[in-house]
């Protein structure tokens, strides 16, 4: 294992402490560590990517519908380009089915040209309006009554879990320290050194980056700033069985409203169909449960969008909290006197924009905070990103790869039947740079137990492998352990 917990108090301060290991914090830590900064990534929870970054709709947005002129609009478009290229190289599952933004009444139909114009203003020029006939030809299971759609051919779907994990893995390989289960409780800014107080001891650093998601306003207050307040905006989702996958060919979007992007139907890279999210402001920043009303609302919408879908079994239900603020844009700022930068309030597009946020912050920190960073070498020339284990359906999974099974029988031993996760993949995850500490963490790395039976068949076995892995079967084999090197 290359993963090492840093000593509680480090003699020499870090260059940068990044607070929050969501997709944004992991992207920032990756960028800074590749570019030579001594970085520590501090996270309250027991795993990276364990908050909002794990529970979203996983769309790789083109940014066609962003508010033109905002930082969000710019960073989503840039993030799309950066993440598409990165995903291809790191093996992060991505598919580009394109989106159809569907008009269900005349008012929405009239809105389509407005949205097309907005897309142009955001620099996205490939939308096209299609009529009802073409729409139903392309989506035969769509419920009756749609009048037409705006096609956005480049909207994609991505694996959110592998995304955060790839960034964290690359950061760790470039020397970043990962400090889990360490909620930050205070920040004291001295003349040269800032001390970040955490539940597992203080961390000395020169600069601090706040990427604390739902807690970003609280961390902002810890350095003595105000300016935004996070309101958790819950989004609930229903994931349908893989047997429904063939019903849906595109990301099916509604016409957006003030409260957000609305309820969509989309395939996932794991081969399921998801319906959601809802949009509801809450007070409790930890209320990630789903609700009776939310599910009823989704089912009624789903019945309209695609009645056949509702006849299929639900595989899971979940909810994520958007870190919404009173402002209509990301809360990204740099404060030279405090040697502090904030990337907070990244509410509904942060998965897509993560790499662009990191790039933007690194530039701002070099300029304003005097952080000296090596240039990020050209994407095609820089050191290979980690090659992540493939958990997507679009490319060959280990269980179906005859050569791989022949070379290492562990890839022929299916442990999770519903998701076809093999013993080899579980072993690799347990021996990776950023290993899981919980069954949930293992699930996000391998898909084990996330399928239709939810552990009826393999739940107990998986728990056993995590807590008491038998050394003979679970020892890493150099040959096939491609995810961990």
């Amino acid at each position, binding site marked *: 294992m290359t993963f090492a917990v840093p000593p509680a108090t480090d003699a020499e301060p870090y260059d940068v402490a990044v607070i929050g290991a969501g997709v944004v914090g992991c992207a920032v830590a990756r960028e800074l560590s590749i570019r030579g900064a001594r970085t520590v990534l501090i996270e309250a929870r027991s795993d990276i990517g364990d908050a909002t970054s794990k529970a979203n709709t996983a769309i790789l947005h083109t940014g066609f519908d962003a508010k033109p002129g905002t930082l969000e609009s710019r960073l989503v478009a840039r993030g799309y380009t950066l993440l598409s290229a990165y995903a291809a190289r790191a093996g992060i599952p991505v598919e580009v089915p394109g989106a159809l933004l569907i008009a269900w009444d005349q008012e929405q139909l009239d809105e389509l040209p407005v949205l097309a114009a907005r897309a142009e203003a955001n620099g996205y020029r490939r939308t096209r309006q299609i009529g009802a006939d073409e729409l139903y030809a392309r989506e035969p299971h769509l419920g009756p009554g749609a009048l037409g759609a705006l096609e956005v051919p480049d909207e994609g779907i991505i694996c959110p879990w592998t995304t955060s994990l790839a960034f964290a893995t690359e950061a760790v390989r470039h020397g970043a320290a990962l400090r889990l289960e360490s909620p930050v409780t205070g920040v004291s800014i001295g003349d040269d050194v800032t001390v970040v107080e955490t539940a597992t001891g203080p961390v000395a650093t020169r600069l601090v980056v706040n990427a604390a998601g739902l807690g970003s306003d609280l961390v902002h207050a810890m350095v003595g700033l105000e300016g935004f307040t996070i309101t958790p905006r819950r989004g609930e989702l*229903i994931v349908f069985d893989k*047997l429904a996958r063939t019903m849906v060919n595109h990301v099916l979007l509604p016409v957006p409203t003030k409260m957000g992007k609305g309820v969509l139907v989309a395939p996932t890279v794991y081969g399921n169909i998801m319906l959601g999210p809802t949009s509801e402001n809450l007070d409790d920043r*930890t209320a*990630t*449960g*789903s*609700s*009776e009303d*939310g*599910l009823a609302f989704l089912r009624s919408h789903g019945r309209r969008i695609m009645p056949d879908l509702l006849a299929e*079994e*639900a*595989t*899971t*239900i*979940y909810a994520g909290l958007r870190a919404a603020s009173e402002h209509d844009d990301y809360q990204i700022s740099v404060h030279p006197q405090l040697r502090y930068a904030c990337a907070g309030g990244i509410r509904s597009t942060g998965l897509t924009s993560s790499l662009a946020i990191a790039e933007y912050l690194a530039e701002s920190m070099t300029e304003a905070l005097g952080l000296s960073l090596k240039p990020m070498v050209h994407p095609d020339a820089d050191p290979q990103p980690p090659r992540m284990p493939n958990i997507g359906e679009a490319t060959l999974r280990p*269980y*179906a*790869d*005859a050569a791989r*099974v*022949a070379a290492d*029988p*562990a890839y*022929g*031993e*299916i442990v999770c*039947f519903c998701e*076809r996760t093999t013993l080899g993949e579980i072993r690799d995850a347990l021996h990776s740079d950023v290993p899981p500490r919980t069954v949930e963490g293992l699930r996000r790395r391998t898909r084990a137990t996330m399928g*239709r*039976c*939810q*552990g*009826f*068949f393999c*739940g*107990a*076995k998986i*728990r*056993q492998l995590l807590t008491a892995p038998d050394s003979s079967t679970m020892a890493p084999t150099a040959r096939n352990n491609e995810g961990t090197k």
Partner: protein
Amino acid sequence: MTSTGPVDTDVAIIGAGPAGLAAAIALREAGVAGVTVLEREAVAGGIPRHCHHTGYGIRDLHRFMSGPRYAQRYVARATAAGARVLTSTMVTGWTADGGMWLTSPTGRRELHASAVLLATGARERPRTARMVPGDRGAGVFTTGQLQQSVYLFGQPVGTRALVVGAEHVSYSAVMTLRHAGVDVVGMVTDRPHHQSYAAFALATRVALRVPLHTDTRVVEVQGRPRVTGVVVEDIRTGHRRTIACDTVVFTGDWIPDHELARARGLVMDPGTLGPAVDADAATEIDGLFAAGNVCHPVETADVAALSGRAAGHAIAGWLADRRRAARRAGVPIEVDESFAWVHPQRASTTADLPRNKIILRPRVFASSAPVRVMQADRCLWEGQVRHLVPTRPASIPTGWLARVDPAGTPVRIESATRGTHQ
């Protein structure tokens, strides 16, 4: 035909549970040479492997034994009969020419067979599929996972458990929890009565002091990182309350493991959600058969085994004389609203009369009810059926199948029962 090219085995049986193993034994006894049973678990035997209570083998083996012993006995008999039982071998899909894709530690390969029997069993609907909202705290189980945790791995479970459901398997969950030293704080069912044997229900309520809350549904699971309670609602009054517990077991509410059946393009019966078959276990694809709990979710293991055994005999007959069997469409068998489903769902003219009964799944509770089998205006059978209980089998004899007009309209099984609807 299932496979169009050369075959590797006469019959491939997918699933080495009681149904698949009983079919394998019957096929070998009927003289079929190549019988291959494919099992994705490392150990064959199916669900009984981890049901460490007694109650297995009554109707098929005429004895009373524990699940693991029952499973071992079937595996031993199938092996002794000359069937090849391949474990850690999962059928993951179909090849373009009707063969099967297998993955096992020995390799990824195709297998082609003259006939294929789907004996893939059934599983319990987990909490998420029932769309029970609330927190995603730990401590939520199905009986299947609970039994494996307790009996196969000796893992800690919790301290206070609520059991959701009151069918046979729910009582099995209570016994497993007690065995693991967990307090069972109650059982809830959305129906007006339990659906198991009176003796089980009485013993659980009185001797174990586990209260049964009828007409009660689960509306929310609370607590994280660990379950702290379950909100339940009295369906009659709408009154809600929270039952404190750190463990909740969702039992029963079965769904067949029909993935391969659907992937092959079979039409699912809307009642069972499994493949529709005739009395010879034949699906609408010639050479493709289905038996056991994938067809009737769920029966006890002995009934599944008898279903498998009958399928084995039928497949042997099909192999011996394919031409005769090839042209069969069959008349659909339907049920009225008193029943959730019937098995089999087709009466085929060429099918031998099944050794098994016709299985019905009542929607109502009734101590006895008149049942008629009608084809258009013609009454094929009439009689009283006793002990109608939802989730439990009711059965009628099969003699009337011979009287079905092969050119006639669908057969309809009706009951004028006034049972308690639920």
